[in-house]
Structure formats: C-alpha cells, structure tokens
C-alpha cells in the first residue's frame, strides 16, 4: 500500500527558539581530523535585500570523505569520532551566517568515480514553502572538472556553487534566492 507523503509547509519566521542553539554552527573541534575552515556568507532575496530569517543546515563527509551514517559502507575504518558532519545556523539581521568545520574529502559517486569535495546545503525561510537544496564546492579542485553535479551546470551558473577563498581557511558562499544570477538549486 502506498502512503501519500505529508506535504511541506514553510518554516515561517519564528523557528529560532526551537531550532537554533549556540554551537550548532560549529562542526569541528581541536580533535577533528582535517583542515579547519570557516564558511561564511549572506542570503539575499530578489531585491538583493538581506534575508534575516533564514535557516541553513549543512551535511558533509569527514576529511577522508566518509559520512557518519550506517548506510555509508566504510564506517569501520574511516569514521572520525570527533566529527559528525551536521551543522545548523540561522541568519542574523544582516542575512549572514557562518560555519566552523573542516574541508570534506571526496565522496564516491554512483558511476564508480569520485565526487569532488562538497558540502550539502538545505535552506529554509519564511517565503519558501519548501526546502531549497544546493551544494558548496571548493575552488582549485582537480575533481571539479569531472564532478557529476558540476558537469550538469552551464558554465556561467556553475560558479555560484564554488566558494570564494577570502583568506587562508576562510571561504565565502553567498546565496542569492532569486534573479538572473541566482544560486543554482538542486532537486534531490
């Protein structure tokens, strides 16, 4: 028997006390293996006004490309006990967010190859009836050229998924919700 799914509804503006807590935007500590990085950015609407009430969640593999999840078949050998891969942040009054994490390793794809290092992103907000999903990629990665998701994207839009390095270990990922140069969103 098929069960119809429960429909999506907007997260609305008042999720903060229930969903956001200090420290949820910090994924890595001094015990975590890998290169410590910061990812910061701003969420902007179709008028390029800041979105001060968005919720961003990230989900990523550890430094060797392993997800902390039983369906990743490499759990025994590749897990990092000091990294679980999930982060959450609400945007501030300027629409800004920041995560402290580590750079993920490459993850296996479906075609026998490797996906370029990436971070999976969910975005929720008042005015979005459903989640938006996208991915964060890193510049100067050899695997970007063969990544199955990046390869799907036309060249001018591909750049919206690749973070800009603003300092050593600091990357910028702005999310433009609407417009000609809006961020690429993915249907998963």
């Amino acid at each position, binding site marked *: *028997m*098929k*069960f*119809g*799914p*429960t*429909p*999506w*509804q*907007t*997260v*609305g503006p*008042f*999720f903060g*006390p*229930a969903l956001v*807590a200090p420290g*949820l935007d910090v994924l890595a500590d001094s015990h975590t293996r890998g290169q410590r990085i910061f990812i910061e950015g701003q969420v902007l*609407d*179709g008028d390029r006004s800041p*979105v001060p*009430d968005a919720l961003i*969640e990230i*989900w990523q*593999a550890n430094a060797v490309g392993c*997800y*902390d*999840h039983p*369906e990743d*078949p490499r759990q025994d050998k590749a897990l990092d006990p000091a990294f*679980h*891969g999930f982060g959450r942040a609400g945007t501030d009054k300027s629409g800004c967010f920041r995560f402290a994490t580590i750079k993920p390793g490459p993850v*296996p*794809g*479906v*075609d*026998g*190859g490797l*996906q370029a290092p990436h971070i999976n992103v*969910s975005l929720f*907000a*008042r*005015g*979005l*009836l459903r*989640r*938006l*999903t996208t*991915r964060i990629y890193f510049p100067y990665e050899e695997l970007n050229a063969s990544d*199955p998701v990046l390869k799907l*994207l036309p060249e001018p*839009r591909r750049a919206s998924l690749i973070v800009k390095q603003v300092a050593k270990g600091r990357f910028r990922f702005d999310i433009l*919700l*609407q417009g000609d140069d*809006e961020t*690429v*969103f*993915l*249907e*998963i």
Partner: protein
Amino acid sequence: MASLVGYQPEDEASHPPNAYPDYVSTRKRAPVHPPIRIAHTLSEITGPRLVRGASVLESLDLTRGSGGEALGERVIISGRVLDGNGRPIPNILLEIWQANAAGRYAHEEDRHDAPLDPHFSGAGCLLSDAQGRYRFVTIRPGAYPWANHYNAWRPSHIHFSVFGPGFASRLITQMYFPGDPLLALDPIFNSVSAPEARDRLIAAFDVETTIPERALGYRFDIVLRGRNATPMETSR
C-alpha cells in the same frame, strides 16, 4: 561494490510550489530558475542522526513550564512517523514549535498584541520510539493575524521539523486542527493544490488518546518520502 538504496522522486502533487504569489513573501524569495535534478549518491542517502547533543526524550510535556502550568486548552498530539510504504521509522528526531493559546510566539520578532505566557515556551523536541510512534502534550495554539493581506489570520497550527533517515528525507511542515474555519482562507495551507494532500496536514480528533478530565487527543501521522525498491550500484 556496495549497494545503495535511493529515494523515490518527491511526489510533486503532494507538495506546494515555492513560487505561490498568494503567499506574498514568496514573491521575492522563490527562485525563478527550475532546480537541477541530480542522481542520488551517498551525499543524499546519508543524513544527520543525532543533531542535538541535548537530551531528547520519547515524550514531552510543554504545558508544565518554569514554575507553573501553561494557560489554554490542553491537547495531546500523537502519531507515527512512516515511510512511503507505511513502514514505521524509529528514532526520528521531531522538533516542534508553536504560538501560545493567545496566538503569540515566544520570539522577539513576534509583534502581535497578545499576551505572552511565562509558563509556555512553545518549543520542544522528541524522538519517535522503536515503532515510529511519538506523543507530546501541549496547549492548542491560538490563531494570529499576519500581514499577508487584509484581515489575514493564520489557522491554529503546530510546526514540525523532521529528520528522516537521510538528507533527502528531510521535512518541515505544519499540523492543523480539524474544522478550523480559517483553513479555507489560508494561502500557506492552500499552497498545496491537491485536496487529499492538504487533508494530510490536518490532525484527527481521537477519543482513544483523549484523557478524561484532562486533555483532548489528536492524531497526526507523518509520512516521509519513500525509498526505491531496488538498490543502485556504487563504488566504495
């Protein structure tokens, strides 16, 4: 080689579009480009499990706040978390939040001229049990006005945030109460075009879970996206 089981495509007839102009906030926030469909990999099939270090209980009572009882009509919300084949999903984190009985959120940005209740935070989290069941006690939230259009009122609702087994099965939704006359006028509820899908957002009054002399029971099952029947191949 290892086998991964992907998720079925989202059932578009059951979900709202992001661009829905009657809900005015969508006009400057909904993307104009269609999303780009990607194949499921480990990135979509895996997902966060324990997302909060804080203690998460299998039952929750929001009516007993700091030092006193919340005002309003006590209700018991219970149900199951299921997948698209009707199988229970155990150990799922549910996060809930809602307005108080007067229709006011305990949130600094809520400017509705209605009283706060010092004994009601309206926020909590719990886990589904081994059979996918959950249950919490709260008060029925009040309706409240919003600025979407002239004389706009949100029907009574409780927000639910649900983590399924994978990144692909995330769901955030709102639960409504049966017979609420505001439902017919609410653009957020009506953004779901199929009536049978909208009905899945409305809890059912349940005398079985009603506690005599204490609280009315409502049942609300949450059905997450289904998995594929057959695995796909991936390298390891």
